[in-house]
């Protein structure tokens, strides 16, 4: 009963407030209960300059593509609360979603979106391609993946593993979708461990053909995007057996369907079936029953087989050959890492906009209810994630440049950085999506509000193109190898960002203060200290196990706890350094001011959340308390900038969701009658 009274009072207050609020004094029509008030605009910096810094490149192309999608019925526009939103219809069946994906590709193809994606050269063409793929991913992950498989995996394999004869035949055909490509690498029995795949290829010198075979069920190709319905050609990864000797994994072009979509002889294809997300992509399984392909179908930039059946390779070392084959997977990790950041941006833009318009509970009698984002606890949930997303956005831009400007000398760095960032950014995205979903309460559960569905659509990112845990171990392994080699040569560190280890260990002030923790010197020092100390500890532990007679591999496996901490330390530091660079490149003082707050938040919340800082004593418990208090202070300092910070993400309203705007109108009775 008391509850009911309280509720009545609140409702009455809303109605009265409305009349009292009108300062003009004119008669006001009674609004029914709550009405939507847009978030207050209080940008202290130029949002479009910030967007330029965040998106980094090809803004005109991005907006053009947003326009193309917003303007076609194929992209499922819906009117909600006076605004049009575009998002896929996830209520469609798997088959319908797959057909829509192909129709959307055709529409984009007809309008020239893919021009230059295979035939363009130079870093400009590559950056354009990456920008457009990012925009596509903001609309739908399935669409981006379907396009990514065709251009980056199939097309990338042709580009990187193929030679002129393949380029002439396939690049233009790929760009115009004369054929549809897929990428048959993973098998039922082997995913991350590509070296262990079981598909076998032999050579028949009499007919000058390769014979590809799936020898057992675990060798069936699995998860092959595009294979179940649409792809006409594939790049098959297979062990190559020449004159009884296994030469390791090689890649071959094989046709799997004719132009009418009929499956070719000696090929069997089955569907992977319905998935928790990404159902607009037709993942399939492929069996090869001694399929014969012409000799020229071997992608021979790394190794070749002569017509009389001799194995030829410029790279004698099998490990290096394998490494060369893995190179195109880097592009996948780059695009995955960057798209993960865009999803975090999207969910934060929605959740923060909602939290600036949705109120809950009054804290004074008869007072208005409080905006969600005015609760310190709500700030603590969203604003640190916002800061991390900014940091990772800069890291994503850096990774793209590293990829586009790659040289043979940078391949190792690219491999390590892309592994670490792919894992860190996709994990961050999943965590952000969950927090934003919860921060939107019940509204977060509606598919039309996007965030909940994105959890299902993007979950796969922590697995494909390298399992995140495996990738992080590779980071630590690479750091250890660098450490051991450098120590053995007794030379200074000069790779993988370890140069700071040539200097004396940084000292952390025994008594931290607010001004110290805001300084970029301190922030860099403590991240460097963590990486350096963990690398020393990791190396010591591994060698301890080795001294006890363990193999290098099992010593490494046994030291997994330190390996995990070290992988995180490396990526956090790399991210911080890209943030500092981006901050320095900002021309405007107002931009720099807000970015320095965001950077401090990124570092301090990392110190607050990663137990390694306390575990290994980089922070005393007193200093950890200072850090924790400063995180709360930063929340209230960033709060006034929250709207402008998410507006700077450059995601058009139509690609967000109804709760980001007038959610009262979107849910009005009259709106439900249309």
């Amino acid at each position, binding site marked *: 009963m008391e509850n009911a009274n309280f509720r009545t009072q609140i409702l009455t207050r809303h109605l009265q407030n409305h009349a009292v609020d009108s300062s003009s004094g004119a008669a*006001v029509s009674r609004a029914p209960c709550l009405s*939507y008030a847009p978030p207050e605009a209080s940008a202290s910096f130029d949002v479009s300059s910030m967007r330029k810094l965040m998106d980094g490149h090809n803004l005109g192309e991005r*907006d*053009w593509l*947003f*326009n193309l999608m*917003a303007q076609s019925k194929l992209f499922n526009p819906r009117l909600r609360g006076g605004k049009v939103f575009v998002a896929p219809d996830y209520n469609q069946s798997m088959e319908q979603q797959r057909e829509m994906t192909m129709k959307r590709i055709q529409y984009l193809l007809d309008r020239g979106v893919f021009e230059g994606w295979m035939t363009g050269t130079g870093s400009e063409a590559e950056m354009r391609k990456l920008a457009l793929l990012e925009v596509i991913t903001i609309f739908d992950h399935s669409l981006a993946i379907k396009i990514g498989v065709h251009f980056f995996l199939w097309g990338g394999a042709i580009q990187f593993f193929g030679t002129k004869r393949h380029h002439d035949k396939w690049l233009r055909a790929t760009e115009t979708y004369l054929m549809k490509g897929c990428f048959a690498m993973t098998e039922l029995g082997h995913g991350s461990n590509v070296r262990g795949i079981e598909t076998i290829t032999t050579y028949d010198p009499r007919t000058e053909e390769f014979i590809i075979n799936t020898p057992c069920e675990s060798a069936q190709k699995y998860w092959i995007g595009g294979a179940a319905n649409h792809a006409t050609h594939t790049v098959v990864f297979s062990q190559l057996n020449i004159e009884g000797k296994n030469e390791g994994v090689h890649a071959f072009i094989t046709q799997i369907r004719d132009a009418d979509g009929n499956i070719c002889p000696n090929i069997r294809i089955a569907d992977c079936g319905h998935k928790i997300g990404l159902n607009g992509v037709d993942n399939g399984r492929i069996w090869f029953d001694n399929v014969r392909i012409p000799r020229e179908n071997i992608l021979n930039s790394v190794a070749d087989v002569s017509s009389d059946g001799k194995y030829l390779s410029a790279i004698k070392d099998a490990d290096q050959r394998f490494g060369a084959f893995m190179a195109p997977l880097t592009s996948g990790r780059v695009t995955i890492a960057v798209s993960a950041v865009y999803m975090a941006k999207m969910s934060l833009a929605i959740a923060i906009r909602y939290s600036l318009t949705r109120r809950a509970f009054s804290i004074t009698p008869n007072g208005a209810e409080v905006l969600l984002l005015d609760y310190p606890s709500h700030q603590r949930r969203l604003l640190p994630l916002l800061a991390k997303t900014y940091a990772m956005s800069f890291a994503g831009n850096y990774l793209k440049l590293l990829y586009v400007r790659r040289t043979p000398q940078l391949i190792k760095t690219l491999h390590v950085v892309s592994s670490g960032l792919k894992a860190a950014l996709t994990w961050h995205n999943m965590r952000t999506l969950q927090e934003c979903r919860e921060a939107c309460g019940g509204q977060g559960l509606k598919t039309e509000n996007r965030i909940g569905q994105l959890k299902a659509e993007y979950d796969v990112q922590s697995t494909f193109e390298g399992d995140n845990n495996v990738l992080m171990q590779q980071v630590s392994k690479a750091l250890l190898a660098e450490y051991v080699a450098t120590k053995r040569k007794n030379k200074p560190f000069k790779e993988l960002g370890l140069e700071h280890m040539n200097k004396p260990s940084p000292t952390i002030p025994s008594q931290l203060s607010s001004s110290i923790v805001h300084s970029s010197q301190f922030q860099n020092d403590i991240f460097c200290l963590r990486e350096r100390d963990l690398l020393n500890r990791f190396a010591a532990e591994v060698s301890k196990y080795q001294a006890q007679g363990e193999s290098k591999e099992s010593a490494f496996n046994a030291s997994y706890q330190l390996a995990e901490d070290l992988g995180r330390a490396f990526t956090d530091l790399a991210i911080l350094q890209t943030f500092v660079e981006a901050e320095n490149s900002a021309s405007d003082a107002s931009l720099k001011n807000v970015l320095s707050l965001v950077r401090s938040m990124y570092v301090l919340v990392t110190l607050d959340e990663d137990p390694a800082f306390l575990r290994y004593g980089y922070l005393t418990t007193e200093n950890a308390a200072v850090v924790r208090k400063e995180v709360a202070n930063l929340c209230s300092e960033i709060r006034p900038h929250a709207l402008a910070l998410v507006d700077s993400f450059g995601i058009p*309203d139509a690609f967000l969701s109804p709760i980001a*705007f007038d959610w009262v109108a979107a849910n009005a009775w009259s709106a439900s009658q249309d």
Partner: protein
Amino acid sequence: MASTNGETDQVLVEERSCGRIFMLNRPKQLNALSSVMVSRLLELFLSCAEDSSVKFIIVKGKGRAFCAGGDVAAVVHDINRGYWKSGAEYFRKEFTLNYVIATYSKPQVSILNGIVMGGGAGVSVHGRFRIATEKSLFAMPETALGLFPDIGASYFLSRLPGFFGEYVGLTGARLDGTEMLACGLSTHFVQSESLPLLEEALVKAATSDPMVISSIIEGFSHAPNLKKNSAYHRLDVINKCFSRRTVEDIIEALERVSADMKDDWISSTVQSLKKASPTSLKISLRSIREGRLQGIGKCLVREFRMVCHVMLGEVSKDFVEGCRAILVDKDRNPKWAPSKLESISDEMVDRYFSKVDDADWEDLKLPVNSRLPAYAIAKL
């Protein structure tokens, strides 16, 4: 019938029970919006918003035009005397009026019985009901004048079906009442002879319920047929070509289509693009593309920046030249500078979208109306 204004006033106001009828009254100038008219309309709209006895508003024009646009001749006159800032004040007021109309809480019925161009669209298309007739003639001719579709056109043009808005905004194509209805620029089509009866019916109903008003207008409406050679029949070509990323690409795409088949409509479309100011084309396209992704408020703020840069003439003085050639000397032979699309760089286009570097200059500040869902609601 009570008239509150003398006959010489540029806006005549009639009070008809709960309705207010604003009649644009500069028939000799085709009701082009003078600074006085803009101020008066703004004042009228704001006071009627507060006046609970007013239920709806009708806007119409005297003579053969609804409104042929803003008074650009006066603005150019100011620019030539070195007073671009008085031009800026004119646009500031006009765009504020556009915003007030776009976010207005009471239904506005605009009777577009004649010419509707530029600024005329700005005082009607943002309102709830737009009635076209067999006499309607709509165009956004700004690119031929060295200007760009302003008055919030980047908002409403970009929301027309497909890429029809790019077509209308870049070429200045003329639309009749039927085409306006087909593309959504008007909400109803009524024969002009029925207009007096329609007005009476609205006054008699004395309601602010948009559903009721809509059904009253529907009672007088009929569904006209598009003329055989209407551009609206060419929507597929328009979508294919005008969706291209740049003006150059659009022209190239049109020429490619016309190479495949001889077609007068395509050649005249290409012709009008080639006659327009190249700078205007580039900034117009970008403005419409940005407008598609923004609310009406942001559109007007951006267009205000753009129009100030147009008047400042730092990149191009095509506005002055266009007005000279079309409105003053009437030789219809403007000398555009830069004269070629390819000599206009992205950086030059960027300039139009940046803040104006002038100590006294401010971005357009839009009025905040606490009782409205101030989030700009599309009525289109």
